[in-house]
């Protein structure tokens, strides 16, 4: 399956949580935590398993200037792939 057609959802071990001290969103998982930028947090919040990666990129594009299209597309995809590599995002829809 093409990566863009998969519907990413956060892994069960990962939970989005606001850091009350900094106001930033954190992606927390066992013994670790990832501090997210505003944009990264917005992407992570879209990873509910209901939208394809393509949909998520489209939704993010609407937040940025059309002139930045290429950059935004590349960065959102790279972020999604980096979460997959860390095991924080599940993309395949295989029944577990």
């Amino acid at each position, binding site marked *: 399956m093409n990566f863009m057609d998969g519907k990413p959802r956060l892994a069960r071990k990962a939970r989005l*949580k606001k850091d*009350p*001290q900094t106001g930033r969103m*954190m992606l927390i998982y*066992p*013994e670790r*935590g990832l501090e997210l930028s505003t944009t990264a947090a917005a992407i992570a919040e879209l990873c509910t398993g209901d939208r394809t990666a393509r949909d998520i990129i489209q939704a993010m594009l609407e937040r940025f200037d059309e002139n930045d299209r290429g950059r935004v597309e590349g960065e959102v995809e790279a972020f999604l792939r980096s979460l997959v590599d860390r*095991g924080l995002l599940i993309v395949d829809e295989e029944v577990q």
Partner: protein
Amino acid sequence: MSGGRGVGQAPRPYTLVAELTYRCPLACAYCSNPLELGDRDGELATADWQRVLAQAAALGVLQVNLSGGEPLVRDDLEQLVAAARAHDLYVNLITSGIPADRVRLERLVEAGLDSLQLSVQDTDATGAARIAGRDALEGKLATATAARALGLPITLNVVLHRGNIGRTGDFIALAERLGAERLELANTQYLGWALANRDALLPSRAALAEARALADEARARLRGRIEILFVRPDYYADRPRACMDGWARRYIVVAPGGTALPCHQAGSIASLSFGNVRDASLEELWTTSPAFVAFRGEEWMPEPCRTCDERDLDFGGCRCQAMALLGDPAATDPACALAPHHDLVLAARARAEAPGAAPATEAPLRLRRLPAR
């Protein structure tokens, strides 16, 4: 985790390790509990822990590890999980998996448990009994299966040593079979009980290299499915471990009786005075308790650490190891090849490599004694 606002002069803690009890059905020869398992103060009550969890969250802690001993032996575990979640903490249960049944796990999940870290001592029954006093693999597998059915993410925690490091491939296969999301292959570090058993536990360099290669291969093969961590023993690293990510920098450990510690072993440093959560708030302990302040930052560092380019990476290594091997908690960690007393570590390695070293199935072991109650 990076960044974070300081509290006064102190950095901000991220993780609370709540050691709920020293009671445990197992007797692992590398247990991270202190050698002296005295229970002078008695275990903290439910209300004490509820207060500690609230104070931890207010101090900036984001994650709590409910640990022990075996936390499942406490009847109020569900209440403590719920209390931690009420403060929006991420809750890890670090457990042997016994005694647990499906009903108990269901209650814990309902209370808001985020993740289960399940220890597996060995895939071989004889090896497990030898290191932990009994083989409990069957019960652990049942716990893992029940957890999986409940959608609870599982980390398999394996402590590697001479007796099981040859079965690293089996541990990886087990993690795959159980659908674990993480596998921690953490070599024994030689403190406390593990130091008492060092000559029976320290693997050879060749065995370590083989295990590491298997972990590397599995990490590449399972990328995106299972996160695989491999932690070397600092005895073979030539540089010290960044113990606890730096003394009193990220972690607070609260022992069963309420003593607040910068790490599990810190009580072994007799010259430090430790406060108790029964008498003081966690914030007060974290910011001003002499035990937390003693080795925080770089002021305490001797040479060669003080001017070392790597001091931001390892924070000067492990104070308890300096204490255990040299009797001086401020000495350079002997695990470092630049340390004046690195020869102590080299000598232990040489014994592990010696042709006459006792095989893993025969070397005498001193199992952790259960605390008298």
